[in-house]
C-alpha cells in the first residue's frame, strides 16, 4: 500500500496540474462546490461532501448544444475540452452517481456526445468518507463510505497521510505520474487504514431497509399512501437540482439577431410545467403526482430500466429541502404500508 504524506499533498496537486485540469472542492460564496483550481491552496479538505452536485461538471445546468449564424448559415460546435481532467476529492456516492448517469446518457446504445466528451476525458480521484454525515444513507442503497466502485484512484485520509490505491487502468497511469511523491505505508498506517475503513461503515447511522421496494412499488401507483407526502411540498425543485442522479433536461432555441443557439438545461419533475403539453393537457397536474413521480422514478422505473436504484444516499435533498420533506421518511413509510 502506498501513501502520500499530508505535507506533500500540495506537490501532489501541483504535479497533477501539470498534466490535467484539476477540479476540486473549493469555497464559492459560502458553499463548497467543485471548481477548476489554479493553486492547491484553494482546495478545501475538511468537507463532508460538497453542497452542489459534482455531476454538474459532466452534465452542466445549462450548455450550448450548437450555435448558428443565420447569415452565414454555418453551425458552430461549442469548443471541446483539450486537456484531460482530474476530479479530485469526489465522494464515493457521487462517483457512483456518475455510473448511474452513464446509463441514462447511453440509453439504447447511443452515447450522448456532450456528456461523454467530458466523461471520457475525466479521471476520478475519490476520497473515502471517514466522517459521514448523519443524513448519509449510502449503505442502504448498495454502496458505502469506502465504496471503490466508480473510482479511478481511491484515497483514504489517515492521521498524517492519504492512503492511495489505483482502481482502474486510468488510475494506474496517474499513479505512475505521481510515483515519486509516494511512500510505502508502515505497519501502523495499514492498521489505521483498516480501522478507519471499518469505523466509517459503522458511523453511518441512517439506514433504510429497501429490500423488495421496487417490486412492491410496481403495484402501488394508485395506493392511498401517496396522499400523505405531498402536502408540505412547495414544488421548489431544490431536491432535484442538488441531486447527483437527477438528469432531466429541457431544450430551447434562443435567437438574437442573426445569432441562434440551441441550449439544454436542467428541468425538474417537481415543477407543474415539466409535463405541460402544447395542447394544454398536463398529465401530472397535481403536486401529489409529481412527488410520486420523483420517488417512483428513482426507486421503481429506474430499477426496471437500468437494474439499479437512482439514489446514492448522499442526503443533499434531505439537508436542503426548505420544508424538510425527508426522502428517508417517505421510503420507510412505503416499506411499512401494505402494498
Amino acid at each position, binding site marked *: 500500500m502506498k501513501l502520500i504524506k499530508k505535507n506533500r499533498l500540495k506537490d501532489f496537486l501541483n504535479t497533477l496540474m501539470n498534466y490535467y485540469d484539476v477540479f476540486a472542492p473549493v469555497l464559492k*460564496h459560502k458553499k463548497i462546490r467543485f471548481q477548476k483550481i489554479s493553486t492547491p491552496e484553494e482546495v478545501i479538505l475538511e468537507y463532508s461532501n460538497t453542497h452542489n452536485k459534482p455531476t454538474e461538471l459532466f452534465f452542466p445546468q445549462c450548455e450550448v448544444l450548437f450555435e448558428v449564424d443565420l447569415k452565414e448559415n454555418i453551425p458552430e460546435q461549442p469548443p471541446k475540452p483539450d486537456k484531460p481532467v482530474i476530479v479530485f476529492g469526489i465522494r464515493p456516492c457521487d462517483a457512483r452517481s456518475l455510473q448511474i448517469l452513464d446509463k441514462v446518457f447511453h440509453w439504447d446504445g447511443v452515447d450522448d456526445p456532450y456528456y461523454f466528451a467530458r466523461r471520457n476525458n475525466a479521471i476520478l480521484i475519490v476520497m473515502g468518507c471517514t466522517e459521514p454525515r448523519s443524513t448519509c444513507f449510502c449503505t442502504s442503497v448498495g454502496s458505502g463510505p469506502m465504496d471503490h466502485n466508480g473510482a479511478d484512484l481511491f484515497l483514504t485520509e489517515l492521521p498524517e497521510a492519504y492512503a492511495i490505491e489505483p482502481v482502474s487502468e486510468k488510475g494506474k497511469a496517474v499513479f505512475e505520474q505521481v510515483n515519486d511523491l509516494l511512500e510505502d505505508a508502515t505497519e501502523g498506517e495499514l492498521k489505521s487504514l483498516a480501522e478507519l475503513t471499518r469505523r466509517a461503515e459503522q458511523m453511518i447511522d441512517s439506514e433504510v431497509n429497501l429490500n423488495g421496494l421496487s417490486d412492491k412499488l410496481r403495484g402501488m401507483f394508485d395506493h392511498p399512501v401517496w396522499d400523505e407526502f405531498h402536502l408540505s411540498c*412547495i414544488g421548489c425543485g*431544490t431536491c432535484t437540482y442538488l441531486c447527483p442522479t437527477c438528469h432531466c433536461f429541457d431544450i430551447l432555441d*434562443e435567437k438574437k439577431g442573426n445569432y441562434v443557439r440551441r441550449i439544454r438545461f436542467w428541468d*425538474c419533475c417537481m*415543477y407543474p410545467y415539466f409535463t405541460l403539453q402544447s395542447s394544454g393537457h398536463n398529465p401530472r397536474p397535481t403536486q401529489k403526482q409529481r412527488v410520486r413521480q420523483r420517488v417512483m422514478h428513482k426507486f421503481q422505473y429506474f430499477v426496471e430500466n437500468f437494474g439499479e436504484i437512482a439514489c446514492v444516499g448522499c442526503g443533499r435533498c434531505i*439537508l436542503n429541502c*426548505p420544508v424538510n420533506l*425527508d426522502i428517508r421518511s417517505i421510503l420507510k413509510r412505503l416499506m411499512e404500508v401494505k402494498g
Partner: protein
Amino acid sequence: MSIEQNIREISRKLLSDGVVDLIIGYGQGTLPYATTPVFIRNADDVEQLIWNPCCTNNLALYVRRELEQANKKKDARPLKIGVVTKKCDAKAMVELIRENQLKRESIVVIAVPCSGMLDKAKLHKRAGDRELLRVEVSGSEVILAGRGFEIKVNRDEVLRDNCLVCKDPESLPIADEIVVEKDDYKKPYVEDDFSDVKEHEKLSPQERWAVFRAEFENCIRCYACRNACPMCYCSECFAECSQPRWLGGSVELKDVLFFQIVRVLHQAGRCVDCGACAAACPMDLDIRKYTRKLNYDALNIFRFETGVSPDDKPLLATFSIDDTQEFITEPE
C-alpha cells in the same frame, strides 16, 4: 402549560367542535434545526403539532393553496382552516385578504406569541460549519452540538435578521384564538432604520451592479425563493410563461438576474418581510436586501406598510393626487 400544549388544545377543540376542517401547523422535522408543515384533519392527531424557534416556513402559502383547491370542487361545503400563526404569517394573510386571494371567514387564526426564529445559516456558521446533530434552546441560550463539540451561543445572536426588526410579535393584525402561554425568552427588538438600504443606495450604479452580480451569479434558479413566498401565487409565473417567453432558459447572469429583478419588483408594496424566501434559498443568497429596498420605498415614499389591516387597499391599488412622483425617471 407550554405554548405547544396550548396550540394543541385550541386545535383539538376547533376540530372536535367542527369549527374547522383542517389545522395547518408545524410538526417534528428530521433535522435538528427543522420543522415540517403538517396538515391535521383529525382531533386525535393534534399531538403532531409542535412549537419551537424553528417554525420558519410561512404557512399562509398553504392556506391559500388549500382554499383554492377546495373551491375548485363544486358543491363541496366551503373549507375552513385553522392556522398556527406567527405575526409574519398573519401579515401575509392580511395581504392575501386584501388581494382577494383569501376570505377572512375561511380562516381561524390561532395567534402564537412568537419570539423569533433561528437562522439556519447563522447556526451553521457558529458551529464552524461542522454538522449539527443537536440544537437545544433554553431561555436565552442555544446549545449547538455535533460530533466532538458542544457550544453555547446567545439566542439573540442566531435569530434571523427579519425577526430582529419585527415589532411586537405578540400582537397580530388578525387573530381569532389566542395562545396565552408565553415563552420565557423575549426577543430583542431593533428599530429598523434601513441603514443597510441607505448605504446600498449611496453606491454608484456600477457598484450596485457588482454587488448584485456577486450574489446572483451563484443562483441555481431553483425557484425556492418564489415557491416559499406566500405572496408569489400567480397561476402562471412570468418565469415559466412560454407565450411570450420573457426569460431564457439558462443560468447565465442575464437570465438569473432578470428572474430575480422581476420577482423582487413584483413584491413592491406586498412583501411582508417574513424571511421565508431567504430561509428557503439553498444557496444562502442575500435576497432579502432587495425586497427590503422596496419596503423602504413604500414606507418612505407612500408611508405604506404591509400587513397592517385587511380592510385597507393594497398599495398598488391606490392612487392619490398627492402621491409623489419623484421615482418616475425619464430615460437619459
